[in-house]
């Protein structure tokens, strides 16, 4: 019998093409796509963990990084419990500076108590000879006091572990701050469900003060090679740009259609999230109802703006086509 539901709002933020959507998709069990499609507005997905007396619901907000499509909506930064700040290990300077410039201020204002991880994605692209430069870049442009983890969405190295570690940290914080006896022990119960221990997860952290290029290579080379999910690659002609960014840009005629389809898919996904919000409200105990109605009103306003961004982007794409997509590049 379920005693309680624990809802966790996780924000995934970062510059466009840093791999946010890929790591979210893989975490929830979808395929990895080698083709870059910008996220319009936000995509909200859910992952659930069933414990003995609790259900943990992770509501993941994957926020698009392309400014031409995504004006910064305060709803994206509000009431976040945990945050992935994603940067690109093949382009650390630009992506780290963007995190500091664009996201940190809003986060500090609207979700000051959120637990944050700095996620360096695309560790599969790190060449041993570039490791030292990479580490220096991160030391220089990184964000202080935020733990760093390196992952690869493409090879899935450390991917699920990074999420699990962040969730574990949140549950520990919840235990420490809560007087509810039923919450105690929940973080250990979570570890038991995922089949890992705290020591294993803590090994993910990159300690910039002591790490060097040799130990970095050891850290990012996985001991267990994970089975790579079938990657999505269309048979039509693509323009390879791997040396610079590792991203493939398909021909124009394909990408506009794909983006439009994605927008509609994400719109429907977010409709699901609104529906979940309403259903959750039905289950709220009467003592917390007034407060919850206010919170839900705020969230609905955020969703409304997100829906508007998606619709406007769709109409813009109809009118302006590819030029809308290339605006940020």
């Amino acid at each position: 019998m379920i005693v309680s539901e624990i809802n966790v709002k996780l924000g995934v933020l970062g510059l466009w093409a840093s791999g946010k959507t890929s790591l979210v998709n893989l975490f929830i069990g979808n395929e990895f796509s080698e083709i870059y499609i910008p996220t319009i507005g936000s995509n909200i997905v859910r992952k659930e963990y069933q414990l003995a007396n609790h259900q943990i619901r992770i509501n993941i907000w994957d926020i698009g990084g392309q400014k031409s499509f995504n004006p910064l909506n305060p709803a994206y930064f509000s009431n976040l419990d945990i945050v992935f700040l994603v940067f690109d290990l093949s382009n650390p300077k630009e992506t780290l500076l963007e995190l500091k410039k664009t996201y940190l201020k809003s986060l500090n204002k609207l979700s000051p108590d959120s637990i944050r991880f700095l996620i360096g994605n695309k560790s599969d692209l790190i060449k041993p000879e570039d490791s030292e430069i990479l580490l220096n870049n991160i030391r220089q442009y990184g964000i202080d006091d935020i733990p760093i983890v390196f992952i690869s969405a493409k090879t899935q190295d450390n991917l699920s572990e990074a999420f699990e570690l962040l969730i574990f940290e949140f549950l520990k914080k919840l235990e420490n701050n809560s007087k509810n006896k039923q919450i105690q022990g929940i973080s250990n119960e979570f570890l038991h469900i995922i089949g890992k221990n705290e020591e294993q997860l803590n090994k993910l952290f990159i300690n910039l003060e002591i790490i060097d290029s040799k130990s970095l290579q050891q850290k990012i080379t996985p001991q267990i090679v994970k089975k790579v999910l079938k990657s999505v690659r269309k048979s039509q002609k693509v323009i390879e740009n791997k040396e610079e960014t590792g991203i493939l840009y398909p021909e124009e005629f394909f990408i506009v259609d794909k983006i439009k389809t994605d927008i509609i898919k994400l719109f429907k996904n977010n409709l699901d999230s609104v529906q979940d919000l309403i259903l959750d409200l039905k289950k709220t105990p009467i003592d917390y109802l007034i407060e919850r109605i206010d919170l839900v009103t705020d969230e609905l306003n955020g969703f409304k703006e997100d829906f508007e961004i998606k619709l406007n982007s769709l109409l813009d794409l109809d009118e302006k086509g590819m030029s809308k997509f290339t605006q940020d590049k």
Partner: protein
Amino acid sequence: MEIKINNLKEEMTKNQNEMLNRIEETIKTQEEIIMDMIKKFNEEFYQHKTNVLAELEHLKNQQDVLKISYTVNENKLLDKIEKIVLKKVHAKIDGKQNEILMKFWIDELKQIIADFDKLKQLKPKEFRLQLNEISEIIALFKNKMKIE
């Protein structure tokens, strides 16, 4: 003299009677003529009335036919107009059904948000009903949106 007066009196009476008879006969004849005229008028009038009624009936029938014909043509015209308008509307919205639905949903969501605070005043049963209604609206939009 007396005999002459008596003769004169007799002649006068005779003349008087003759005149009365003649007047009576004339009146009688006139009366007969007038009666005949009335009779003839009545007959003609009746005939005319019968003809007019028949004509009226015929006109009524024609009117009914025209009414039916008008109604049928009106319906045909309205059908045709409806088809043309629908065709034009479909041509205009072809390929844009999702965008239109998205716009409708956003408008609906704005209304839901505007009314959301009122939920605080509702009794539990009404509260649940209201939320169910919102949930159904969302499901409806989800079902209508098609991904090609």
